[in-house]
């Protein structure tokens, strides 16, 4: 177990290093010049060069990357070119909002997805099953931008049940969580359905039925716990999907998380922020996968850590 963990940690670090190198190289190769953005339109060529020197952007790629890396190891993500604030401060101030949204999204996708999957499995082959599976397909395919605006229009503008975007209370959280959750719910509904069908076929289920147990008891006491575990173990992997989703969803709902920060930084070629958010996201994804792998054998003893 320890050896496995050690190996996985080293792998994770290598992945993060690779991500940092590739992102840094891509941003370096970008034809846009961040110094021009900082210096503005009235700057003389001297001013531009001066700023370039101060930021160390006149150095060769490898030197720039080395400087970045050494600072990174001491926890310093640098200063934003445009906002002129510490990137760490910007990310830390926005991280709680993104984490909150992620928790909300996970709750939504589990609640909706598992319920849909359960009903579909029980009603297997009926029109209910078919309707639910089509719905899950739509959920997976619908663009989050459209879903977000649609929910906003119906539930906030028309019905007035929730605030129109913003941040602060649980009511603000519902619609963005739902928007993110609908995508995952589609996946979970399909996984839950097949997992449940698999379980329902098992011998011990037949035994339970033969004992004359009530249908509810069979489903909720015997089938559900067995079917749900492998599905729940997937949550760790979801984090990667969420990281992509928050960029869109946070922008639509004015949710002050790191997705919104990343989107603005990309538009303004604010390289330190783009690097910082990419690394934090990569870290979250690596961590999520690692946790999923560690938890898996506890849930399903057939999986062994090697």
């Amino acid at each position, binding site marked *: 177990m320890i050896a496995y963990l050690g190996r996985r940690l080293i792998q994770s670090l290598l992945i993060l290093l690779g991500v940092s190198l590739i992102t840094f190289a891509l941003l370096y190769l*970008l034809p846009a010049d961040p110094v021009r953005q900082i210096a503005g339109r009235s700057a003389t060529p001297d001013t531009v060069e001066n700023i370039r020197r101060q930021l160390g952007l006149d150095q060769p790629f490898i030197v720039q990357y080395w400087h970045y890396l050494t600072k990174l190891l001491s926890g310093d993500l640098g200063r934003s070119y445009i906002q002129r604030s510490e990137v760490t401060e910007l990310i830390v101030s926005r991280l709680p909002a993104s984490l909150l949204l992620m928790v909300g999204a996970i709750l939504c996708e589990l609640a909706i997805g598992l319920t849909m999957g359960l009903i579909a499995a029980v009603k297997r082959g009926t029109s209910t099953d078919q309707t639910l599976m089509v719905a899950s397909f739509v959920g997976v395919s619908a663009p989050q931008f459209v879903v977000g605006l649609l929910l906003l229009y119906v539930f906030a503008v028309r019905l007035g049940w929730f605030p129109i975007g913003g941040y602060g209370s649980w009511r603000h959280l519902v619609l963005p969580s739902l928007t993110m959750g609908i995508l995952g719910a589609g996946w979970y509904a399909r996984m839950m359905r097949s997992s449940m069908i698999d379980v329902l076929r098992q011998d011990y289920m037949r035994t339970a039925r033969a004992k004359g147990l009530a249908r509810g008891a069979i489903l909720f006491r015997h089938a559900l716990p067995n079917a749900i575990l492998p599905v729940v173990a997937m949550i760790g992997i979801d984090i990667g999907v969420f990281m992509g989703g928050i960029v869109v969803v946070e922008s639509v709902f004015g949710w002050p998380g790191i997705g919104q920060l990343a989107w603005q930084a990309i538009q303004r070629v604010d390289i330190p922020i783009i690097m910082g958010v990419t690394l934090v996201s990569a870290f979250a994804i690596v961590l999520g996968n690692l946790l999923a792998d560690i938890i898996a054998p506890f849930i399903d003893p057939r999986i062994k850590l090697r």
Partner: protein
Amino acid sequence: MRRFLASTVAASALALMLGIASARADDAVDPNAKQGGAITITYKDDVATLDPAIGYDWQNWSMIKSLFDGLMDYEPGTTKLKPDLAESYEISPDGKTFTFKLRHGVKFHNGREMTADDVKYSLDRVTNPKTQSPGAGFFGSIKGYDDVAAGKANSLSGVTAVDPYTIKFELTRPDATFLHVMAINFSHVVPKEEVEKYGADFGKHPVGTGAFKLAEWTLGQRIVFERNPDYWHKGLPHLDKITFEIGQEPIVALLRLQKGEIDVPGDGIPPAKFQEVMNDPEQKARVVVGGQLHTGYITMNTTMPPFDNVKVRQAVNMAINKDRIVQMINNRAVPANQPLPPSMPGYDKAFKGYAYDVAKAKALLAEAGHPDGFETQLFAMNTDPNPRIAQAIQQDLAAIGIKASIQSLAQANVIAAGGDKSGAPMIWSGGMAWIADFPDPSNFYGPILGCAGAVPGGWNWSWYCNKDLDAKAAEADSVVDPAKSADREKMWSAIYDKIMADAPWAPVFNEQRFTLKSARMGGADNLYVDPVHIPINYDNVYVKDVQ
């Protein structure tokens, strides 16, 4: 030494004879204005910084004006200069020395009185390369600027605090724009002790002399301004509090306005909803329309064949159907025929430009040796409506035989292509177009049409460099006497007329501003389309539902 009464730049003869700065008409505060109340403004993007030496974008420009003051300012809602922190000023006959008398008793938000030393410190700071100010270049005419910019000196030798209430500027050349330069945000006065206390984070802890002070800043969420009770301009501001909510999509902001939750969507009416708003009489009544110091144009790289031929450039000017393009963007602009926008001093009303004439354009192209047209590239920014406009231009060009392929790229990439001498044959400037930093005709020349901008990484994307016009521009800017400002404007009109004869640009339109406000907002319409305070003049607006 001659004294010019600064508040009335037209310099009435009487005032000149009296030679004193009398009470100024613009000190009068709107008698209908109500005191108190709070408003909410939304923005999509984060506010980068509130440091006047650094802030240079749509959201923070007007915010900074409300937190800080400069020696000069403009009468609310106009482009008319007036003294602000200065009480009066004098300009030497050679136009190279400006002496400002400061107001007594002006206090920073931290309670300390502002003096001439603060003015000097602020200018030394903004020009210091370590500050990395995007506005440093505006101060190029001050003596000692080159040494500071090169890092050889820490202080501008041309700026002297004569006594606590007198500050003197010596320039290397007569500079008619200098009073404007003393009004832009970059010259606003900051207290040294606060800058040193917060260092690079001063932009998040701004302390100035302005009408409002910063009460709260929650990163990525909201910024709250509170009325400065000690503001030197009695009777201002009218509002007690302004809340800026950040991260709101324009379309969401509009929905919230319709529900009465906010007062002004800072990013304006989203294009997709424009018609809907304008077709609704109730909403339309709350839209204020005004000119903007903006021109959208097509640049043609005068160093790249076939655009090195003036006839080709003139043909392109005649080929563009500007009315159709304006219609395409829901008439949110007016067609342009010259670089200067109509609300800019120096705009030549009599100038007709190149009329839309496909036949004549084709004939010119044939004369230039391209009877069958040619192939070229048109660069444009990739956000709506710019790709659509680029397509319209592409169709217009095709009508005279020019086959332009569209390169639709991110803003920074288009800017990079324009700054490369062999990068872009044609660029549609939309999304990056020139909006004046201050309302003076010279501001549309130097960086975008003068030789100084025709350098690698510069903003003169047509690479047009006419030494003769550079000399004429310098001559016009040496006319410092405000009494001769009409002559100076004529000189500038002539310069732009000559530019249009050479046709390095095809001016397409001047954007109009459409500010939507809630029903409770009060104050003159021009405060909501203030040419200097973009989007609105926070100091002078008020709400009608207090008391």
